[in-house]
């Protein structure tokens, strides 16, 4: 069906994601659409998201790899660079995208963003302000959200 014309590159990337997953990251294509991936990222240790399992969706548009993949958090997360719809502020998903980047590099960058929030380039003004004025308290909130929404408890 929609998957018949899948470029070799996407097939190769998918195979590699499945055979050699990056640590703390899993990505598997949906059965009925090989361009749609269900993604899980483990909250990095030493971060307020530690212990959480975050679900994301990733979609490869028709122009991929000339255009960046579309990625969104499905799990609620308290993070200055992620808004309440789960959209992510990350340069390589926008103007810094290069066709030589891959799904794997994108997901690793998102994982790194969880370890190092950047309140100076915010997507969510309120959270960024919170982060800048009272980081300790913001981190507590992030931990609380992780416990509430990302532990499957």
């Amino acid at each position, binding site marked *: 069906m929609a998957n018949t014309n899948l470029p070799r*590159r996407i097939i190769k990337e998918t195979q590699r994601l499945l055979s050699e997953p990056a640590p703390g990251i899993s990505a598997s294509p949906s059965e009925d659409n090989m361009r749609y991936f269900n993604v899980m990222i483990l909250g990095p240790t030493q971060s307020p998201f530690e212990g959480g399992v975050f679900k994301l969706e990733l979609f490869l548009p028709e122009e991929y790899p*000339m255009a960046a993949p579309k990625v969104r958090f499905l799990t609620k997360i308290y993070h200055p660079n992620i808004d309440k719809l789960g959209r992510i502020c990350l340069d390589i998903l926008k103007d810094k995208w290069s*066709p030589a980047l891959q799904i794997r590099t994108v997901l690793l960058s998102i994982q790194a963003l969880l370890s190092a929030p950047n309140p100076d380039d915010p997507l969510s003004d309120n959270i960024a302000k919170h982060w800048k004025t009272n980081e300790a308290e913001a981190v507590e909130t992030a931990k609380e959200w992780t416990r509430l929404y990302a532990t499957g408890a």
Partner: protein
Amino acid sequence: MESDYDTQDASDTESMEDDFYSEETVVRDGEDEGEDEGKYGFSDNESDDSDVIVSERLQQNYTVLDETDIRQRQEDDIRSLSMVLSTSRVHACLLLRHFNWSVSKVHEEWFADEESVRRAVGLLGKQVEMPNVAELLCGICFEVHPRTAMSSAACGHPFCDSCWRGYIGTAVTNGPGCLMLRCPDPSCSAAIGQDMIDMLAIDEDKQKYSHYLLRSFIENNRKTKWCPAPGCEFAIDFVMGSGSYDVSCNCSHSFCWNCTEEAHRPVECSTVAKWILKNSAESENMNWILANSKPCPKCKRPIEKNQGCMHITCTPPCKHEFCWLCLGSWIEHGERTGGFYACNRYEAAKEEGVYDESERRREMAKNSLERYTHYYERWATNQRSRQKALAQLHNIQTEKLEKLSKIQCQPESQLKFIIEAMLQVVECRRVLKWTYAYGYYLPEHEHAKRQFFEYLQGEAEAGLERLHQCAEKELRVYLEAEVPMKEFADFRVKLAGLTSVTRNYFQNLVQALESGLEDVGPNRQTNSSKSSSSKNISSKNSPGNSPKSSTTTNNFDNYWYCERCTFANPSSNQACEMCEHRRH
């Protein structure tokens, strides 16, 4: 050329630098050859009526460029830079693009710190070759290709030609950012220049890229802008700090180089911006004004204004003559409206009587709208009159002149005075239009200035109405004639005279507004003689406030100039045909 540099020096250091640097290698055409005669202000030679059109054009401080000129200049800059830096054409082009096409800026930065310029622009010192193996893996499609089907930038990162094509295509589709394209490898900043584009992209993308490069040369350059007229492809190269911002494109559109609104000399850009904003805020109220028809004040039949001048005559049998602007009877036009032919003065109706507070407030709101309406209507009407005059001018140039030449047995070269009259009308309508925006913002309490302004505006407007009427209506008689008319010679004198009179009035108006109406005072005549003959040699023999009549010129030997309005009258007249002032 020595003196040229002296005069420019103070006003424009930046462009001087550019000229200075490019001097070493390339002398740009047109820029360094000053229009010497033009630099000394108006050359006020009524004697030669082929030069009288719009005298400001003589002091041209800009150059109109077509695509060939632009490419030529761009190529010259690129070639000369690549010679000076002993670098490739492609690198020179990337450097110039990065520094907004300022040759001097590239020099400055390059010679201060070549390494950091190279890093910023993505110019690698040495070409790195792709690994020398038979087959290579492409970092985009993840396929293995023969080395011969792969390409790389100076960095040696190999991608297959098909991926390159897609990569460049995506960048070009995304817009002018493609001019700053880098190697697809995310860790690499090697610049992708036009040579790569031409080698790897499809033809359509090559053309788009080249078009963006051309646009960038104009758009990212401080000294150049595109003409804003729709569909126009000319650009204007402007000499900064050189007086008036008004430029006239070869497509015939005149605009302000500073704010790119249509030309609005002598009114300032800020006034124009305020006025345009005001108009858009009031546009709903004003819609009715733009309607092209009004009822005749006498017979109430709707009259359509399909001509340029404000003097309207109702269709028979009514034939009532009235002013389009104030709907007053034409023959009653006079002191109250600013002069017989003028209708520029705004006086809020002052009614006596006792008002209660709310009534007064209502009255004030009404007055402020009325006041705006007064100025807006005159602004808009002059705008439309100008459009009509332009259309008429075109019509004259394309067919009427030929027809007239046949009917009146005159060579077309002898009919240029009609074109000149119409050009003057077009230009004056534009100026007059903007003086209404000026008038709206001239503070009410500056009584002396207002009075002086309205006087000058009224004079100019009256002159223009006479000229426009003559060029439009009187001309028709000669166009519709069956046989040559001997009165045609008089018509020529009258129209040429009116053209020159009107030009004088408008020069006075423009200069007065540009000097902020500082010349308010009893000696208005001084003002007019100063403006029009200050550089005129013949004014030497008439010291002081000599009226213009003494600067008689040779072409109209059989005519005398009116002291009051400068109209050229046949020597047989004892009083001025225009203002009835008696001959000296």
